[in-house]
């Protein structure tokens, strides 16, 4: 092959991604004296989902009750949320609120925050940027320690694409989550790149059986902006008042289960959750919660001037009056492939944000499988603050690691092999286009009877297709230019995610939160009070269970239905017929 032109950089710490997690990680590492390179697939300030982060829900001990937050979040997320991470969130989120205020982030609209505030903070702190560069694999030294990464520049309009080698003492993945570039959600730039790199490096991945369940519009399914217009028009901090709800307000599987049981309801409304139209004469939904939350007003951090206060209830309708008719009812799959914010990705069992089993590798934000939000997103306000807290935490751990270890050295043959592998789709003359692979992946995974309503034979069928695409087609992808090389690596990562999602869905033989199995339509705390883990061993994808502490289980003095008020289709019948107790 013709050798790819190459640029090489070195730093104490490499941070991949520059949203909330990456920004807070980089600022913390600079405060502690490390040299930092931040590499981004896009441009720092525009990165990832951060231009869409609208809501916040900091915990203020002056006005909120810690036990109530624990109870409500556990019930809403069906008890598989990580309570230690929730304590960390409750300890640190108010600090993030005041830090964002001090930076001036409360004076911006969501899409302006990155360019007007985060980017200038990072520049002032002396963080170096490597931008419009897709990172494809991690580099390791001969002891197995992560020592940097390899990527490439895809914009070849002004100069040819080149390989980028980033040497570092440690790496923090702040790469966000991903979807299958599904219509109606602005996350196409993220394609599980962090998971893919970490998995290849030997890390453990969790949370793949659970889903984000955002819907889109039937008559304009690709119109992502229509669902977010309201947020981009809000200038300032948008604060969710009160604790997370016990049952309501989360991204549940409700719409998909309704469709499965009753067919499509073409009257579903245009609110972000697909809320049904109001019943004439009935009290407005959420009225009781809004009334209850009035007691917090004028207290604690809510005294801060200029806040936009959300008192609870269903989210504001995203569109102007009349759009409901034009855009149609809500249809599922806008985030197909995406797990739950803060609950899918790289496992760090000791809360340090260090990837289990891989020295020198850290993760934060939606790249970290912290399981803060368990099996479903429990109402708005956890995501961006969770990312900021974890970014800071990951940096502190990485700083200690870098300061107590000599810089690693990667053999040049390893770097050359990584570059060759990355460049391979540019060399193939015959094979498959990344665009076709992407559409075939979407068509395989997105239908509700594969993605949301799971059953062994259908999961096996989809898995057979995805395995073929990974084994036969991925090594034969063709990329004619830099843009297609990016598409090729993105679909490779999305296909890996699809296999993880199918295998995790098959493995968890129960139903819980956003994971529903027709053939196991019941929660089973005896066998499945765990997180499902995915790890590469000997080239194979290995599934495992990480059992959770007994004390996190729902109260044994309550009835099953008191602990799990949401009813899955077929669940009551299954419970009546079961021969053993769960």
């Amino acid at each position, binding site marked *: 092959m013709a050798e790819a032109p190459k640029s090489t950089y070195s730093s104490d710490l490499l941070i991949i991604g520059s949203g909330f997690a990456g920004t807070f990680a980089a600022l913390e590492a600079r405060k502690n004296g490390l040299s930092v390179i931040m590499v981004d697939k*896009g*441009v720092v*300030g*525009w990165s*990832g989902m951060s*231009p869409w982060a609208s809501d916040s829900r900091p915990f203020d001990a002056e006005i909120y009750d810690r036990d109530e937050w624990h109870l409500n979040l556990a019930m809403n997320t069906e008890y598989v949320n990580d309570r230690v991470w929730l304590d960390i969130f409750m300890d640190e989120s108010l600090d993030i609120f005041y830090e964002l205020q001090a930076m001036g982030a409360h004076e911006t609209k969501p*899409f302006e925050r990155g*360019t007007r505030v985060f980017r200038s903070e990072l520049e002032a702190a002396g963080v170096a940027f490597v931008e*419009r560069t897709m990172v494809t694999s991690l580099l390791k030294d001969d002891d197995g320690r992560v020592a940097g990464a390899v990527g490439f520049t*895809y*914009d070849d*309009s*002004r100069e040819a694409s080149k390989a980028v080698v980033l040497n570092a003492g440690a790496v923090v993945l702040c790469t966000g989550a991903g979807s299958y*570039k599904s*219509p109606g*959600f*602005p*996350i*196409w*730039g993220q394609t599980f790149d962090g998971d893919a790199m970490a998995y290849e490096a030997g890390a453990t991945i969790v949370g793949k059986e659970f889903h984000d369940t955002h819907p889109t519009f039937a008559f*304009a*399914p*690709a*119109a*992502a*902006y*229509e669902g*977010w217009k309201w947020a*981009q028009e809000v200038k300032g901090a948008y604060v969710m008042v009160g604790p997370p709800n016990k049952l309501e307000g989360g991204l549940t599987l409700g719409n998909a289960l309704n469709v499965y049981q009753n067919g499509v309801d073409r009257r579903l409304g245009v609110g972000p959750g697909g809320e049904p139209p109001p019943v004439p004469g009935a009290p407005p939904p959420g009225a009781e919660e809004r009334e209850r939350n009035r007691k917090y007003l004028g207290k604690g951090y809510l005294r801060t001037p200029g806040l936009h206060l959300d008192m609870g209830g269903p989210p504001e309708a995203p569109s102007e009056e009349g759009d409901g008719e034009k*855009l149609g009812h809500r249809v599922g799959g806008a985030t197909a492939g995406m797990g739950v914010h803060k609950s899918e990705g790289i496992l760090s069992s000791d809360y340090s944000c260090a990837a289990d089993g891989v020295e020198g590798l850290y993760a934060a934000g939606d790249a970290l499988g912290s399981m803060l939000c368990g099996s479903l997103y429990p109402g708005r306000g956890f995501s961006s603050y969770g990312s900021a807290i974890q970014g800071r935490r990951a940096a502190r751990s990485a700083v200690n690691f870098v300061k107590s270890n000599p810089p690693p050295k990667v053999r040049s043959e390893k770097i050359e092999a990584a570059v060759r592998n990355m460049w391979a789709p540019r060399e193939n003359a015959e094979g*498959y*286009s990344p*665009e*076709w692979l992407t*559409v*075939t992946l979407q*068509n395989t995974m997105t239908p509700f009877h594969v993605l949301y309503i799971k059953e062994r034979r259908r999961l096996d069928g989809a898995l057979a297709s995805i395995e073929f695409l990974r084994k036969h087609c991925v090594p034969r992808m063709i990329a004619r230019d830099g*843009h297609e090389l*990016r*598409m090729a690596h993105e679909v490779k990562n999305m296909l890996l995610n699809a296999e993880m999602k199918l295998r995790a869905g098959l493995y968890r033989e129960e139903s819980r939160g956003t994971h529903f199995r027709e053939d196991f339509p019941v929660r089973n705390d005896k066998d499945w009070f765990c997180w499902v883990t995915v790890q590469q061993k000997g080239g194979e994808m290995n599934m495992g269970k990480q059992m959770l502490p007994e004390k996190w289980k729902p109260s044994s003095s309550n009835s099953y239905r008191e602990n799990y008020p949401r009813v899955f289709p077929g669940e009551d019948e299954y419970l009546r017929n079961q021969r053993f107790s769960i």
Partner: protein
Amino acid sequence: MPIDRIHGCIGCENCVKACPTDVIRMDPASNQAFIAYQQDCQICHLCRLSCPVDAITLTPGKAMLPTTSWG
């Protein structure tokens, strides 16, 4: 159509930087932004929101790629 046209570009590159999916590139000859990979537009409007002269037009519809047996 997703991103539909760029008319009246002043060459600031904001839209190129804002686009998360590499749809927009700079034409080195004219020093103006152009739509290079329209099929990858996710209709998020970050390009339009970032444009200082309101040069970018988007529409909410999108032609979805038809399914084929290979490609």
